[in-house]
């Protein structure tokens, strides 16, 4: 919350260079040295992912014989063989499971949280402030607390192992953050707008759909991308609540980890395939992603 209110434009972009104390220190240290240090650090962050990509594009035989960095001298060794094997092994179905879990969760979280956030922001009812403080408190409840109770509850109603079970769990644990984020944005909507709409006799549902939702678009976009990535990347909930035919990619890959050495082909290509969509989303919408992170950094 502190950052959400104190932070200037929430961007990965550095914006126009500005002269500050620190930049003067940097100047004195020697801009050249700083540049070299940053290049090295950048490599530190880039190389591991690059390694995964190259390993996933080389055959098992080549990978067991030499390091992936030899690719720079022998580029001809690249092959999509691993990906072909991966798809033949039935990985496609876990890809679709990931999609079928992630998309409904994201939509449900946005819808349900937006309704609650609107109520918290613009409606009067007894216990409103306490209710919202509870939401703030629930922000950091560890998922572990619900695994055992929900598993037995799912067993009782017969949705253990199913995709709806996984989705509902995700929705519930996504809600505190989502309500928190949207409510803080919605309170900023000018009161005059809502007042005018209410004077005109518009129903609350209509105000919600026609006024609040469109005006909340930036926050909803942030929430959407954040929620999408969070569910797409989850392993723990899937591990407990998804049975093998409903398992997403993370669980499918996890089951191959035991024999890491002999499954490097499947694991590297599967891991890379699973991170492609988040990465594309991240580069396309990084602004919203960063904004969501800033606003929710109490989590």
């Amino acid at each position, binding site marked *: *919350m*502190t*950052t959400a209110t*104190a*932070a200037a*434009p929430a*961007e990965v*972009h*550095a914006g126009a260079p*500005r002269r*500050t104390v620190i930049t003067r220190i*940097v100047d004195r240290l020697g801009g050249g040295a700083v540049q070299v240090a*940053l290049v090295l*650090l*950048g490599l530190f*962050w880039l190389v*591991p992912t690059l390694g995964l990509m190259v390993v996933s594009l080389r055959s098992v035989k080549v990978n067991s014989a030499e*390091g992936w960095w030899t690719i720079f001298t022998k580029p001809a060794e690249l092959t999509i063989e691993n990906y072909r094997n991966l798809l033949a092994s039935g990985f496609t179905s876990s890809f679709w499971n990931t999609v079928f879990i992630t998309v409904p969760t994201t939509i449900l979280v946005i819808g349900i949280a937006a309704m609650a956030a609107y109520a918290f922001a613009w*409606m*009067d*009812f007894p216990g*409103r402030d306490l209710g919202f*403080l509870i939401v703030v*408190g*629930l*922000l*950091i*409840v*560890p998922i*572990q607390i*619900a*695994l*055992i*109770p929900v598993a037995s509850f799912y067993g009782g109603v017969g949705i253990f192992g199913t995709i709806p079970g996984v989705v509902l769990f995700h929705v519930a*644990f996504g809600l505190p953050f989502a309500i928190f*984020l949207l409510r803080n944005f919605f309170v*900023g909507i*000018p009161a*005059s707008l809502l*007042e*005018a709409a209410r004077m005109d006799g518009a129903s*609350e549902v209509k105000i919600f759909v026609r006024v609040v939702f469109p*005006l909340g678009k*930036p*926050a909803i976009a942030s929430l959407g991308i954040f929620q999408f*990535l969070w569910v797409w*990347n989850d392993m723990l909930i899937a591990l*407990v609540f998804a049975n093998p035919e409903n398992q997403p990619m993370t669980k499918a*890959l996890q089951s191959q*980890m035991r024999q890491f050495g002999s499954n490097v082909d499947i694991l590297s290509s599967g*891991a890379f395939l699973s991170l492609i969509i988040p990465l594309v989303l*991240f580069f396309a919408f990084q*602004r919203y992603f*960063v*904004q*969501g992170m*800033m606003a929710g*950094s*109490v*989590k």
Partner: protein
Amino acid sequence: MTERLDGPQAPLEDDTSGGSASGPDETPRKQRLIGPSPTVALVFLLPAAVLLGIWVVYPIVYSIFRSLFDAAGSGFVGLGNYMTIFTDPSMLTTIRNNLIWVVVAPIIVTTLGLIFAVLTERIKWATAFKLIVFMPMAVSLMAAGVIFRLVYDEDPDKGVANAVLTTIHDTFSSSQGYPEARPREGDQSAVAADKGAVVTKQPVQVGQPVLIPIVGIKPQIMPSDAQPAKAAPPGNDLSGTVWFDFTAGGGGKNGAVDASEKGLPGMTVEAVKDGTVAGTATTADDGTFRFDGLPAGSYVVRLPQSNFQAAYHGLTWLGPTLITPAIIGAFIWVWAGFAMVLIAAGLAAIPRDSLEAARIDGATEWQVFRRITVPLLSPVLLVVFVTMIINTLKVFDLVFIIAPPSVQPQSNVVALEMWRVSFGGGNNQGLGSALAIFLLILVLPFMIMNIRRFRREDT
């Protein structure tokens, strides 16, 4: 950059109030307008309340009760499960690991974030750097785990961490090691073992080639670039040959360089006169060596002990000792970008004039940074630090994926142990519930902190 979560009122008003009929008499935010009845509010809140009630609040209550019962759920054990957490040796290892995580990781991540944010303030390609460092945030911890299993592979020909370490190591010392190799000894032989090194029995004259036959080299240790050994041609320098005096399949003459025998490349050779090293040479692929420009005289030729130690192969990252630091390394890789972006935003928000004022008053740059910048940043630093503490308390995926099954006991953490005892084969949901409650208690102070801070800021 137009839409901002940090101050949404201003831009939204600019967009809308112009066309609005309500005019300038704005209702203050705290004064509520004619709203709908509480029943309508209830309808809007109901779905969220039901989901939060059943999936989050009820489980907390259930877990508290469940943690007081045994594995089967029928026998009441009181605080027995909690006693187990604090007495069982493997559990204590688990708690110790969590403690290491909490003490080490948040400090490193926050410091690194501060350094990155400061360093990139003025760099032209800062955006590219920030995107690269921030990117792991979008990647699943599962994928990050696979990435680091590859990085930490013990074989320096596969794992990039050990490849870098061995490269650095080899730059500063001889690259080839021949463990267990020894000289071919006997009356005929000119060399003998001496305290782990190999020396010539008699001092040799410059210009007289030295033959140093070595045996006991395992085939897998033999370097692939070894060439058939050659006797060094006589010349004016001190020279000779170090070779593997063994002909596969028998034959060959002991102590003589035979046609099929290979030289030993990368051996360090020293010429010693009166106990001090007068010159150093390294053998070529065919095993020959030559000391250039050594003064005439007689020398003892020595292969120092360092040749006979195993070659450096880097660290056992995924072994029992280094596993937790190794996984913390992966955690830092994932989270440094988060810290950097938050701190960079805080840095950009620092008012320039307070810095200028201090500078005019004669403060040095370092004083300005220490006394003004860091204190002004402290709210952001605190948020990053606390977020990291919560994340380290909950750390699960990275440990589960990166630690190989055999070292999982040494790298275990509470969140992982909770899953293991309840679902991963342990089948003890009483103990599992106790661990879940333990985890909840660990994050409780931060929960209260959040609520307090929110109340302070929202009123």
